[in-house]
């Protein structure tokens, strides 16, 4: 990563990025964003469900009502929250975030959620690499996937795609980013994980 692949990317001002925090004008410091905090809490709740023998099985409709946080669906996750989760991931080669580089953009995030916490939901993110031959597109996509898998409730299926026409190896990268087995194997690679940890260190 010593050779910078795109030396002069277009940079957006961090303050001009869309965010729930500014929209509501209630939260001055984004680290205190209540939505984010609740998201992180929820991911903990869900992982404790994972360790609980009976909570998920047999009759999910009843058991989950008792077992999990009632507030989960009181405030459904929308594309703005997904954006806030991934916009502050650092680019692997620039001291800038994916939001500043317009790699992730609010209109390119879709959330499909019935609102029922006993059903699966889906997030689709289309990312725009800074240049069409960006060799780090896979790494960026993987960073976004790891971030969302750690933060979102387990019922979310995550699809990460390169925006149409944004990359010369679009199909190959898409296939790799959404191959569960390859992603699982990649996440067992310590070296790769430490690069991703650095990218995620700037997340708030």
């Amino acid at each position, binding site marked *: 990563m010593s050779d910078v692949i795109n030396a002069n990317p277009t940079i957006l001002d961090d303050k001009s990025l869309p965010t729930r925090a500014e929209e509501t004008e209630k939260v001055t410091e984004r680290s205190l964003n209540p939505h984010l905090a609740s998201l992180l809490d929820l991911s903990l709740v869900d992982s404790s469900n*994972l*360790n609980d*023998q*009976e909570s*998920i*099985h*047999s009759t*999910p409709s009843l058991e989950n009502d008792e077992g999990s946080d009632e507030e989960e669906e009181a405030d459904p996750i929308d594309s703005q929250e997904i954006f806030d989760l991934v916009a502050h991931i650092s680019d692997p080669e620039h001291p800038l975030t994916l939001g500043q580089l317009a790699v992730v953009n609010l209109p390119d995030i879709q959330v499909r959620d019935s609102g029922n*916490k*006993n*059903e*699966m939901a889906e997030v689709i993110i289309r990312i725009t690499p800074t240049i069409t031959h960006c060799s780090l597109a896979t790494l960026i996509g993987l960073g976004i996937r790891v971030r969302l898998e750690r933060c979102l*409730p*387990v*019922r979310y*299926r995550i699809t990460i795609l390169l925006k149409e026409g944004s990359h010369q190896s679009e199909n190959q990268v898409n*296939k790799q980013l959404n*191959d*569960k*087995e*390859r992603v*699982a*194997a990649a996440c*067992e690679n310590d070296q790769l994980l430490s690069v991703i940890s650095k990218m995620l260190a700037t997340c708030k």
Partner: protein
Amino acid sequence: MSIDIELVKSIKAHGDKVWSVAAHKKLPLLATVSTDKICKIFDLQSLEQIAELDDTHKRSIRSVAWKPTGDDPSLACGSFDSTISVWGEDYDEWSLLAVIEGHENEVKGVSWSKDGYFLASCSRDKSIWIWEADDANEEFECISVLQEHSQDVKHVIWHPYEDLLASSSYDDTIRLWKEDDDDWTCVAQLNGHQGTVWASDFEKSEDSIRLVSGSDDCTVKVWKRVSSEDEESFRGDSTEVWELEATLPEVHTRAVYSVSWSEQSGRIASIGSDGKLVIYEEVKNEDSESQWKIIAKRELSHGVFEANSVQWTKSFIDGSVENLITGGDDGHVNIWGIPLR
């Protein structure tokens, strides 16, 4: 038309994703493997755990397969750490018999041939290795390395009555392999899936040679061997003609990760990322044309988690049902009862 799928037992078997489940062909034994690097063995009569095989693999165990032969049960595990471990039971004790090295990176699938003579393994390194096994499971000699797939090989499975191997790949194809004059050759390539082929399974029949496959394209397809031109093998170009027989009714909305063809009922089961467990049955219409119909469907078979593996087995508890075993990202192994007709 439709029948019930009853959850017999849900076992919290692993601390992480269950990647694969395998029921022994004859004995009441179930093996399960996981990201937690452990292979567990359960008794299918008591549904209790009887052994835990660990401290061997350094990364996720992706696949597990029982050797169909031998006085004592034995099995092989394929791991992301690029090795295969072989385990056997002797006087109620399970022990590690061999660790097989050779693949460059993640081993994704393992399968034993009908008589336990061959072990096949496949990997992200795009190759399939055929190993010759000895009776004691201590010596494994690689007799062929098959490299025709252009991408990761996700899964391998042997035919239950013939030395015919099917491999599924990230290159969207299935290939069939046979021994030809001491060498193994690709006798057919099945094109038709529009995405990674995750797994396949043969029909358990001696005369009708068919294969079911599940893919990232969300479909389940049945393929049929229409001719096997063994007479051409003296030219070293033995081929088989396979055709797509049917695409089963499309209900999966995400990748299909595993398929299984029942020996007992001839039914097919599929499972995948959408968590749906689907059972199909072949029925003849008035013109005696065969058609596959969905006879049962269970949404959220592993809660809101993805399901990775499904396999049919006869029930060792209740003769009026057959069982499906499934494994999911929730670490659970579920045992389902499906009534026989």
